[in-house]
């Protein structure tokens, strides 16, 4: 398969970036998208050129490291997968493929296709946890009964890998889906209810401080999320936030 890649190149965070054309040949449909980029990078090394920098780690859709806006969609045209799970069979011989970094003011480009997503870490650090006394008298979480339905919903919210596709897909670069998944995974469980009021306020405040946009309910985040995190979580976070606001 022969492809014409149009890839965003940017030397560093302050440099001006631009789209550069890279024709690439010999791509097999069974290769993953990242393997295709590996082959391109090997060709660049052979030519003595600077390789294209992109994030990756587990390459099996779990870690949330890989990003990439591919032909205008985060993680490419296929649904419920991360970029590492995208196969080249999703493209045709002769296709032109635009590859850009996830774009948001809160996700500044570090180099080429790598963006700084530590804004998500700071939202998580704001209160994306439960405070548990680990002095030795900790009660086993499994001794507290949890409704199956609630446990499942909580687990589904917890499958968010924090990749940032929701922000990348949203026309407003909103982080509501990510934040709401993290709020929901605790809000649905009795262990998380103890600090629910403080949690939602702290995490929303941090989300706003990071400079993400507002949610316009377009639903783009839900469609592009590799884990299928539902908009239901955003509605839940809105309810949690409104209830928390009445408590001062």
């Amino acid at each position, binding site marked *: 398969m022969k492809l014409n890649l149009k890839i965003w190149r940017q030397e560093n965070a302050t440099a001006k970036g631009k789209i550069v054309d890279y024709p690439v040949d010999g791509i097999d449909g069974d290769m993953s998208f990242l393997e295709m980029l590996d082959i391109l990078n090997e060709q660049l090394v052979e030519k003595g050129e600077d390789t294209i920098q992109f994030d990756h780690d587990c390459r099996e859709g779990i870690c949330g490291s890989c990003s990439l806006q591919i032909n205008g969609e985060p993680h490419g045209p296929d649904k419920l997968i991360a970029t590492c799970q995208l196969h080249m069979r999703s493209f045709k011989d002769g296709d032109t493929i635009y590859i850009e970094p996830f774009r948001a003011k809160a996700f500044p480009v570090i180099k080429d296709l790598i963006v700084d997503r530590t804004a998500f870490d700071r939202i998580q650090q704001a209160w994306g946890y439960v405070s548990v006394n680990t002095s030795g008298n900790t009660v086993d979480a499994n001794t507290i009964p949890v409704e199956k339905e609630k446990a499942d919903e909580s687990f589904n919210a917890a499958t968010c890998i924090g990749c940032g596709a929701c922000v990348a897909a949203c026309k407003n670069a909103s982080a509501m889906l990510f934040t709401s998944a993290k709020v929901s995974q605790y809000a649905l469980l009795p262990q998380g209810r103890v600090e629910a009021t403080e949690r939602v306020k702290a995490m929303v405040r941090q989300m706003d401080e990071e400079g993400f946009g507002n949610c316009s309910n377009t639903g783009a985040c839900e469609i592009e999320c590799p884990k299928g995190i539902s908009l239901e979580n955003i509605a*839940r976070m809105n309810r949690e936030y409104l209830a928390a606001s009445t408590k001062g």
Partner: protein
Amino acid sequence: MGGFLNSTIARKVAMALSGLFLVLFLAQHFTINFLSVFSKDLFNEVSHFMGTNFFVQALLQPVLIFGVIFHFVMGFILEAKNRGARNIKYVKFNGNANSSWMSRNMIYTGLVVLAFLGLHFYDFWFPEMIHKYIESHPEDVARYYDELVAKFQSPVRTILYVVSFVFLALHLYHGFSSSFQSMGWRNKYAKGLRGFTQAYAIIIPLGFIFIALFHYINNL
């Protein structure tokens, strides 16, 4: 704007509440206007009541004007933040792959509706205020129908109204159902509610289009 309205969620809730208030007003406005299609006298009678009732004029009207101003000012504030949240645009952005045109272009459909409100106020509200409160004409119960019909004798104005109502439909199609999500109202009735809001978004503007065309054609 301080305190509670500093947060992105609170602003969206405020936007949703003002939008829902305007949706309710729209239903009332449509009901009264629709009377003009089949009863001149009834339309005049109801319009006279609305135009002279103290509660409507002194209380509901200022609240409505505040609601309109609040909705578009908050819309601009939200839009400014949203644009700032992505300082470098994508070279290629395939929005159609994951969202509707209406949901992505609320600011533009809203701007058309706002421009229409300018025309609508110029046509009806300002003349009404001047007639009643500045020139202080004696009340004439029979004038409302003739004033309405006179405006729709112009084909250009009729077309402008029809086009504006199409944009109103596009705005409502996403905005009405979206307002419930913003307020966190999403449960087993959400699907049915979405169907109702989308039907409303089509039927009410279509009704307004019908009224405008009816009076234009009726007076050819």
